[in-house]
């Protein structure tokens, strides 16, 4: 079996030289080019010949970053494996790669403690389409509605009014106790109901339901 053809992109010249020398010692890898920035790589037909690219995330500040370069390489060669490494945490980077393109992508944190064998392993696996992106990913950015977060969406004023309401006090009593106007308390109560019961139907007994919900949240928090 022929050696895996590797492209290496790293803007730090010292690291590029020392790690490049190390990688070329492996018989399983063939380092077919090492570059300091994205422009140099993209101008070559070399990309079509490569099996995999090892790319530093933080490249030239005015050019592409590692992920953008990886995506560009994929557009030239749809089979190329992409390995991103960085001094920044890589866990957030997976979500920057389009979902449809993620297979054959790997990520790892830069480390001086890695052996040559560790590099070879991750590079070869990625070139054969087995990227580690699923294990690295910190999870998608989703709009999750966390239960207990409802409590925090109430303003402190609304919380103080709801907790008096939960003690069975009416709007008039609450207004007197908190030195607020009656109409203000009524307004804040209905705003609090809207936060506590976003899907309530008009005919529901809003007050009871809202108080129950509030007490449940207080237990949670």
């Amino acid at each position, binding site marked *: 079996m022929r050696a895996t053809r590797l492209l290496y992109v790293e803007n*730090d010249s*010292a*690291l590029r030289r*020392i*790690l490049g020398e*190390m990688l070329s010692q492996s018989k399983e890898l063939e380092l077919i080019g090492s570059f300091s920035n994205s422009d140099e790589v993209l101008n070559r037909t070399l990309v079509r010949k490569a099996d995999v690219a090892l790319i530093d*995330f*933080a490249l030239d*500040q005015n050019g592409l*970053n590692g992920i953008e370069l990886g995506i560009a390489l994929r557009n030239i060669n749809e089979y190329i494996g992409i390995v991103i490494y*960085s*001094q*920044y*945490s890589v*866990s*957030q*980077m997976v*979500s*920057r790669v389009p979902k449809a393109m993620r297979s054959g992508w790997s990520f790892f*944190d*830069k*480390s*001086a*403690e890695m*052996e040559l064998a560790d590099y070879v392993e991750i590079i070869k696996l990625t070139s054969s389409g087995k990227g580690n992106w699923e294990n690295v990913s*910190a999870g998608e*950015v*989703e*709009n*999750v509605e*966390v239960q*207990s*977060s409802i*409590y*925090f*969406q109430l*303003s*402190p*004023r609304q*919380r*103080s009014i709801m*907790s008096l309401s939960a003690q069975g006090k009416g709007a008039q009593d609450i207004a007197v106790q908190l030195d607020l106007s009656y109409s203000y308390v009524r307004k804040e109560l209905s705003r609090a109901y809207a936060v506590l019961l976003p899907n309530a139907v008009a005919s529901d007994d809003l007050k009871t339901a809202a108080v129950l919900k509030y007490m449940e949240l207080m237990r949670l*928090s």
Partner: protein
Amino acid sequence: MKKLTFRKVLAFIGPYPYNPYLIFLFFWSIVLSRLLPLVTDQPSGTARWSAAGVVFLLSFIPPSLFAIAAYMAQKARNWRTPSLPRYIIEVAIGQSLGFIYAPFLHSILESRYGYDFQTISTINLRVFLAALIFVLLALALMHQAERKITERLNKANELVEHLKADREELINLDEAIRRQTSSFLHDRVQSDLMVVGIKLKSIQGTSSIEINDVIDKAISHLENTRSADLKNIIQVLSPNFEASGLKGSLESLIKQYESNMAITIQVDSASEELDSHYLLGAYRIVEQGLLNSLMHGPAKKALVSITTDAAGQSEIMISDDGPGADLDLVSSGVGTAVIDSWVSILNGIKTLDTVPGYGYRLQVVFPK
């Protein structure tokens, strides 16, 4: 004392931009005071009340006409250079409106109350000119006062704008230094440590067991400094949103608070797509807001949520369950100054709510 020159006298006379509201008030009070004796002349009771009503209504007519005329003149006015003669002609034309309303008022007041409201037919040129001078003087006094107030207001506004610009400049300078330091630490210090580590590793195989052991310890020490301490400092000094996103950057930020407070971070995907300038603003506001939460309590739990709606309006909310504090106390301090500066840079609106015993909530809304 300043020299009173002819030029200054001319400038005092006019021209002025008309203020219809002031003009209305001035002439209304004149007309009303002129007609009031008519009311007190009536026998007390219903007759006096009804006369008061009639006078009240009629007194609106002249000042309304003047105010409308002033408003229209103001709208139509497009002088390249201020022109005193034209201004005087305008005022004279306005004064001639008396030819329209005076006979009307006269006929009503004469027939109902036998009151002689001086008609224009009894006014000759000399009276007209005297009245014109009086009106010009009154307008000058009114508008002179207004001009002074406007000038002062403009100056105050200029100062506020100046302060705002200075504050933004300071923030930008501070961020520039943070960025430089952060990228130096990342590009040079971190990278050099990494290279030294790899070099040490490469000579490891050639030495004795004892030396290998020392090298191992040295590498692990360097790696710890590089990948833990430095990484954290770099991120907090100047977050890299390209690498970590807003949510990831905030999660690195809250690591230092984790022992004191449980913090939940919610960032929706639309907010992650904001320009880096907005992301930095949001990050700094949350940073200072959480410091506040820590200082006033500390709170047990806090929620940070950053959302952006379809219209591009974003909302930052920092809410905790701490003991809360007095609003006046919360509104001072360096943290608040930083938050206020960013709110003004982002063209946003800040809302602060805290009730003792019920936590603290900061909301910042800013447009695209």
